[in-house]
């Protein structure tokens, strides 16, 4: 890409090395200079970053792009556009597509679809063939294609024996297994958090323990195998406490939490609107508080969106029949800046270099995401205006679907520009292509 030189001027650079006032000069897709008072050469594009934070591009560990199979809900093209508008320069595509991403062919297909997309797409491969939980997918073949994270997301691996074998196998490949923690024997048929609200509303519930027993099991399996487990979208105080203790002990586990689990409670379900149906379900306030505490004390390594588009007609079904899932890519950063009592640098860490490391997309693993804003690095950048306020309008989102639970909510903090490998793909909150 022989794009003209780009200067991001007037912002505060924030990365894993700290914060400093600096302009950033980008050329040929790479950062070439980071210093105060940079002069724009003739023909250069200048992006104003006054009052803004210039950060490494955000990395989403948990995106459902829906392609192939559910193109009416989302495509790689529409999903990566939403990602770019949300400040993400890389997303990890979940494998629960149709067909699922459990073979080299299916992974190559997604890479091909993502060629030229508005964000880098990394694939999470399935742990088991067809995500059926019966036998291992060809993990080495997928790892050879660059897959670094494997998960049967949508479901957890129900068999402890199979999960143990998968973890053992993963150690030889240097890959991480992501787990959607949900014990089917406890959760099956559940449509929301089991508790006071589900009891009152007459909806079948999923107890917290359905998540927690699998978290506890996988910690034990990680300990015995040495295999790395990444816990997807943890939602209960009990899960978080289990992970906190395991990490203190040195068990190689990491964890992500989703924005809806630190902003919404199960009381939102009272009107039976399936836009609030998600899996794991919205939990009571004490769990929301525990998720926030996990972000504050480092027990949670990442904020991941679990962006899960669904066509409008599916969200008009009765609550118990509607599919679970919410949009997340365009609201994640703003929900974090609005709802979390954390410094912006911490929020960026949770959305950028920490998830990049878990996904194996960071410079330490040969990737280019989440790295320091420094000369020679590939210019994957995100410029955040922490004071800008905006109101969520579902019809204005880039996703093909409309299932955001935040319609009408006013948020503080907005992605102003996104730069992907030197190309300004979002400028002043507008997609450039």
């Amino acid at each position, binding site marked *: 890409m022989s794009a003209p030189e780009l200067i991001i001027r007037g912002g505060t650079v924030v990365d894993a090395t700290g914060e400093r006032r600096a302009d950033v000069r980008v050329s040929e897709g790479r950062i070439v200079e980071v210093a105060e008072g940079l002069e724009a050469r003739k023909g250069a594009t200048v992006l104003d970053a006054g009052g803004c934070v210039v950060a490494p591009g955000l990395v989403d560990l948990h995106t459902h792009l829906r392609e192939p199979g559910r193109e009416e809900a989302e495509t790689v093209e529409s999903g990566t556009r939403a990602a770019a508008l949300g400040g993400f320069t890389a997303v990890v595509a979940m494998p629960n597509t149709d067909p699922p991403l459990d073979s080299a062919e299916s992974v190559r297909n997604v890479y091909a679809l993502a060629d030229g997309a508005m964000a880098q797409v990394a694939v999470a491969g399935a742990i088991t063939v067809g995500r059926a939980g019966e036998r291992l997918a060809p993990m080495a073949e997928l790892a050879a294609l660059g897959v670094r994270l494997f998960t049967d997301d949508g479901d957890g691996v129900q068999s402890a024996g199979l999960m143990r074998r998968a973890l053992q196998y993963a150690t030889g490949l240097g890959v991480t297994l992501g787990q959607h923690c949900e014990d089917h024997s406890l959760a099956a048929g559940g449509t929301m958090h089991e508790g006071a609200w589900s*009891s*009152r509303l*007459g*909806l079948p519930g999923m107890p917290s323990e359905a998540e927690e027993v699998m978290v506890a099991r996988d910690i034990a399996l990680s300990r015995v195998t040495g295999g790395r487990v990444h816990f997807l979208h943890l939602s209960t105080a009990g899960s978080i406490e289990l992970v906190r203790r395991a990490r203190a002990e040195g068990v190689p586990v990491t964890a992500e939490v989703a924005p809806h689990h630190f902003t919404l409670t199960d009381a939102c379900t009272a009107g039976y609107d399936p836009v609030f149906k998600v899996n794991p379900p919205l939990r009571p306030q004490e769990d929301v508080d525990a998720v926030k505490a996990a972000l504050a004390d480092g027990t949670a390594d990442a904020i991941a969106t679990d962006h899960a588009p669904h066509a409008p007609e599916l969200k008009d079904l009765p609550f118990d029949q509607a599919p679970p899932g919410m949009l997340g890519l365009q609201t994640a950063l703003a929900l974090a800046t609005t709802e979390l009592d954390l410094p912006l640098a911490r929020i960026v860490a949770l959305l950028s270099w920490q998830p990049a490391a878990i996904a194996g997309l960071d410079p330490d693993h040969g990737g280019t995401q989440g790295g320091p804003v420094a000369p020679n690095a590939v210019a994957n950048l995100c410029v955040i205006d922490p004071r800008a306020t905006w109101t969520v309008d579902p019809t204005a989102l880039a996703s093909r679907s409309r299932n955001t639970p935040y319609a009408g909510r006013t948020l503080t903090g907005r992605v102003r520009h996104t730069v992907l490998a030197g190309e300004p793909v979002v400028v002043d909150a507008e997609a450039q292509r």
Partner: protein
Amino acid sequence: MDDLDAGSIGDVLSVTDSFAEVGRRANPKVPALRGRTVATLFFEDSTRTRMSFETAAKRMSADVLSFSAGSSSVKKGESLRDTIETIQAIGMDAVIIRHSSSGVPARVAEWVDHCAVINAGDGWHQHPTQALLDLYTVRQSLGGGQEGTDRFRGLRVTIVGDIRHSRVARSQITAYASLGAEVTLVAPATLLPPSLEGWPIAGVSHDLDAVLASTDVISLLRLQAERGSGAYVPTMREYSAGYSLTARRALQLPPEAIILHPGPMVRGVEIASEVAELPSARITDQVGNGVAVRMAVLFLLLGHGSLDGEAA
């Protein structure tokens, strides 16, 4: 049911008195809803509730359209929302909805304008007219004047059976409690809701024998095998041994106590056949009163406006 306070319940019961009188006439028909059109939308099978509502509407001279999911566009894949919008476009004053999913009447009420939505039972959630007809039957049985609802204060109501999956129980509990009755739930722990936080109940027991002597009204619920209740107790025999109202147990009730069952009743499981035939069992009265209560609800919603548009 949560939307009805004690005053509104009293209004329904008073109006029901008038319509019960209509029901006893040789020609039990009044012109109260002439020119009005109501639709019954039953997405789940029901015999008594549907017949009861349709009879109620016809006795008030309303035009009644009957829609059942089994023989309609739903079978051809039409969505709930499109079905509702189509029916509204045809022109309805009220839709009476039964659905196996909790919350459908509440959602439908958001989708329609100028059309009353009456919940005829949604999932495990609510069945308000069943609770109202229970109250009416109890008030009738207690005697001592038809006016007011004071007789419910301190009344000891015991609800026995599959409360977890029961929309009837959820409506009954709210209804009785709002009139000041003391409600005790009796069931194996597996057939109780996962949480009773905030429920207006006096207590929970797993021992039916222990509560019979202090019961004024006992309401028995069916084990809902179609909702998988069977897996919540080891065997029907074991359930009946602990929770069936047998003749022996019925003798432990105070002499004035009354026995209710919302139907359909499974004799030999939750209630012994001979108990269902006792004079204190008001099960067939409940069915008859159901028509009068539903006439009252339709009249209050469509005749004038003292109840909210949505009975949820």
